[in-house]
């Protein structure tokens, strides 16, 4: 056990019991956290520390005698243990012990004080055990703490730059609400994106870089946090900036429009949201069937956005038809107009028979279902053919089966392994009876004498070529096999999921030759005050891309309206948070799992297919994250450039470079994490730097474990602009039965 003489501090300054606190205040401050020794007639009779100041602060410190506020101070031999010192402090109420040594001869034996051990030193000794030494601090403002903060690959690849490593770490620590709040910083639709995102983050997860390893299930962890917040009945109130006195019209209440509307509203703009449907949400509300997600959660997220004071105009179409609001009138009434109308009209290929009453496009089919209605001419027990192989087609065929169709076919030009639909969704559809025919192109819809659909015939195709970057079909390669027999599938109902069209909102909107809106990545159309973004500019894409468009265009509009972007954040509390990252050393024991899905027999209604994880499973999956945003913080005042971290790093991610020495530099990293020197360079001193390759580092912390001088810490630095306040909303549980059940 450590002896007291090893940790004892010199006795330091002294004072007399008759001194006042005012007399010794400067001494106390100078010696803090060590207390001041109170000495009377050469004997230490007590100690007084800064802890005496607050209780005495109600009086004149010049009248407070040290002897009245001092604490007792037990004596202990220098050979005694720290634990015994702690015991004496607890027993006597002392904040320090005086360390003594024997002196004198055999018959005149006495002790003399040689030092002092305070409570603060005992705490420091306990703290030396700690492996994780990261400070836990919050600082006002966005501080440059003098070291590089790496951006994790998943975050780099995310269109909305979600702070993924942080929210996953919070789940692994059981901080689910924290996690949900971090997600909400850039993502107003986590319940949707937790289920439906195409998760480009997982594509670039460092865990998946290793052969034989799968990426972290990032999307489903997001869903878990959101499910938790929903079941707890939590609600976010956004802090709204003082009014800017400017008004922005947002046309189209889909994910892009709503995101931009929220961003602008939070900044103090008056926002008018125009939506031609009778409900907001765009394709989330009208094109994605309920078995994909919980519509109550969508409504919860929409309500949080609209509750900020966005003026909503539903059942209001912006276009050129009678009764429509025109773009010109919006441009005249508002300081800026953002058009995010998506591509909401389905395309029906003009093949013979496509004008039959039982032919419908998938967008319309799904929209009707979203209003809890059965599409016209659709009858349970009948046969359905869906033309197309994408996500919309999968939703349409699954909806058909769940509405009672008997024989449902999906027919696509792509081969089965190249279908644009998500593989898991296709698998789910097949489990409930979907039949597929691929590599064929629709040629004709057959009808009977009454004009009702009886069959669809297809022509087989040669092998297709695909764009290596986008993975989409190169249409020039679509060629029928001459003379091949046509494939004819009998059916009563045909759904075309063969692309979507943007409906032109009218002048002065500039269009591209493809019929999309001409705008740059920031949404500038070249027309004064007119911005556009989302699918109507990019073409059909993913929900997360639309949210990214919303953020970007909101920023463009703010810049256009002359906002000083730096000053604009001043109304919010800006903080830099430094905290430890969780220890995920055991992560390699766990394999990737996906959330459970309802068994096939229970999937013949509109119940949500994908189920939520248990706490345990979510934490286990979160632990798999490498925490790539962790900062190696080397304490340059302690590091001796010994190279132990470099030697033990299993990923070869660290280079310790000592100037004048021939050390191998193999990590390829160029991020300097430590610059230090020691001793006289002429007489054997050293000077050098440490580099990290953050693309290689897996945050395994073996370097930290092996550092002989304990100078490495793993920490996370986060910058937060506070716009959100979370509160419990008890009434949510009453309104939404699922929340109560949770």
């Amino acid at each position: 056990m450590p002896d007291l003489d090893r940790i004892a501090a010199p006795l330091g300054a002294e004072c007399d019991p008759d001194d006042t606190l005012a007399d010794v205040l400067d001494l106390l401050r100078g010696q803090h956290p060590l207390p001041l020794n109170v000495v009377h007639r050469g004997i230490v009779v007590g100690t007084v520390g800064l802890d005496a100041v607050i209780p005495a602060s109600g009086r004149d410190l010049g009248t407070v005698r040290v002897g009245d506020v001092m604490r007792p101070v037990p004596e202990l031999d220098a050979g005694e243990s720290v634990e015994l010192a702690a015991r004496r402090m607890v027993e006597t109420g002392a904040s320090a012990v005086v360390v003594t040594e024997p002196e004198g001869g055999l018959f005149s034996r006495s002790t003399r004080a040689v030092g002092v051990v305070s409570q603060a030193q005992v705490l420091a000794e306990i703290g030396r055990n700690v492996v994780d030494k990261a400070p836990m601090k919050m600082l006002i403002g966005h501080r440059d703490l003098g070291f590089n903060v790496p951006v994790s690959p998943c975050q780099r690849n995310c269109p909305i730059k979600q702070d993924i490593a942080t929210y996953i770490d919070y789940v692994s620590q059981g901080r689910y609400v924290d996690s949900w709040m971090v997600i909400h910083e850039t993502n107003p639709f986590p319940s949707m994106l937790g289920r439906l995102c195409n998760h480009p983050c997982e594509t670039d997860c460092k865990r998946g870089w290793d052969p034989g390893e799968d990426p972290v299930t990032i999307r489903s962890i997001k869903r878990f946090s959101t499910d938790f917040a929903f079941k707890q009945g939590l609600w976010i109130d956004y802090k709204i900036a003082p009014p800017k006195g400017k008004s922005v019209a947002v046309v189209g209440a889909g994910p892009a429009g709503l995101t931009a509307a929220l961003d602008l509203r939070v900044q103090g703009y008056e926002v008018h949201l125009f939506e031609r449907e009778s409900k907001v949400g765009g394709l989330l509300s009208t094109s994605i069937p309920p078995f994909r997600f919980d519509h109550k959660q969508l409504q919860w997220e929409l309500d949080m956005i609209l509750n900020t004071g966005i003026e909503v105009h539903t059942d209001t179409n912006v276009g050129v038809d009678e009764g429509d609001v025109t773009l010109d009138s919006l441009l005249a009434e508002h300081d800026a107009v953002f058009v995010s109308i998506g591509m909401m009209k389905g395309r029906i290929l003009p093949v013979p028979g496509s004008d039959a009453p039982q032919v419908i496009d998938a967008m319309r089919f799904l929209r009707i279902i979203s209003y809890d209605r059965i599409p016209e001419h659709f009858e349970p027990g009948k046969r359905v053919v869906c033309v197309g192989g994408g996500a919309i087609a999968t939703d349409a065929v699954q909806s058909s089966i769940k509405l009672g169709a008997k024989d449902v076919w999906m027919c696509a030009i792509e081969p089965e392994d190249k279908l644009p639909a998500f593989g898991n969704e296709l698998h789910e559809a097949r489990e409930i009876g979907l039949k597929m025919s691929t590599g064929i192109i629709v040629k004709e819809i057959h009808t009977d004498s009454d004009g009702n659909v009886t069959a669809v015939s297809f022509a087989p195709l040669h092998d297709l070529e695909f764009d290596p970057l986008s993975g989409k079909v190169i249409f020039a390669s679509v060629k029928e096999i001459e003379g091949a027999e046509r494939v004819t599938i009998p059916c009563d109902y045909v759904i075309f999921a063969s692309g979507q069209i943007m409906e032109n909102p009218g002048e002065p909107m500039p269009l591209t030759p493809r019929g999309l809106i001409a705008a740059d990545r920031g949404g500038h159309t070249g027309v004064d005050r007119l911005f556009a973004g989302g699918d109507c500019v990019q073409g059909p894409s993913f929900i997360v891309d639309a949210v990214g468009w919303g953020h970007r265009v909101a920023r463009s509009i703010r810049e256009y309206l002359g906002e000083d972007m730096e000053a604009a954040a001043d109304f919010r509390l800006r903080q830099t948070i430094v905290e430890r990252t969780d220890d995920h050393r055991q992560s390699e024991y766990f394999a990737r799992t996906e959330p459970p899905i309802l068994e096939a027999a229970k999937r013949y209604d509109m119940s949500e297919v994908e189920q939520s994880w248990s706490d345990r499973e979510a934490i286990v999956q979160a632990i798999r994250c490498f925490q790539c945003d962790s900062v190696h913080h080397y304490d340059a005042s302690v590091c001796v450039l010994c190279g132990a971290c470099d030697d033990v790093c299993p990923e070869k991610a660290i280079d310790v470079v000592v100037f004048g020495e021939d050390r191998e530099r193999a990590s390829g990293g160029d991020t300097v994490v430590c610059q230090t020197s020691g001793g006289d360079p002429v007489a054997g001193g050293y000077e050098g730097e440490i580099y990290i390759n953050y693309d290689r580092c897996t945050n395994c912390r073996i370097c930290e474990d092996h550092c002989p001088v304990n100078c490495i810490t793993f920490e996370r630095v986060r910058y937060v602009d506070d716009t959100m306040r979370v509160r419990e909303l008890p009434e949510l549980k009453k309104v939404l039965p699922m929340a109560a059940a949770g």
Partner: protein
Amino acid sequence: MTDIERLDPDRLAPDAANPAVRSVMREEVVFCLPSTTIDAVAKLMADNDLTELPVLIDRRPVGYVEARDIVERLVEGRVVVAGSDVVRPFVTEVTASDILHTPPLLVDEKDRLLDVLASMRRQERQSALVMHEDERPVGMITAREVAAHLAAQLQGAPANA
């Protein structure tokens, strides 16, 4: 200047003897989580000259822990000092939630220092957590800051904590 600053009583009637805590506070919040082990809490206290440490969940204060409770756990053998002859690595199972005290002492950053000190004396506390109007902690008042202010008052100079 924001509306909040316009309404700041310090701007209207500066009072050097009794300033708003915002001008005296330590402009950082050192904290731990309920799940933080007490050896890590001890290190945070030692590194930052604190005898009380706020415990936060979701950046919301839920309580605080005291140094003397950690020293008591050392006496009980539930946490050890470095270099002790207990077989290492010793991982303490005691966390901040086990020694949590409630409620935390929260003060508004616009509160006057003398009022805050009165609250600290009444509740026998050595620290207070300074809160922003956004319900987030933004600073701390401890004996160190109070002593700096009082020393400056005694010398008739502005405080420099």
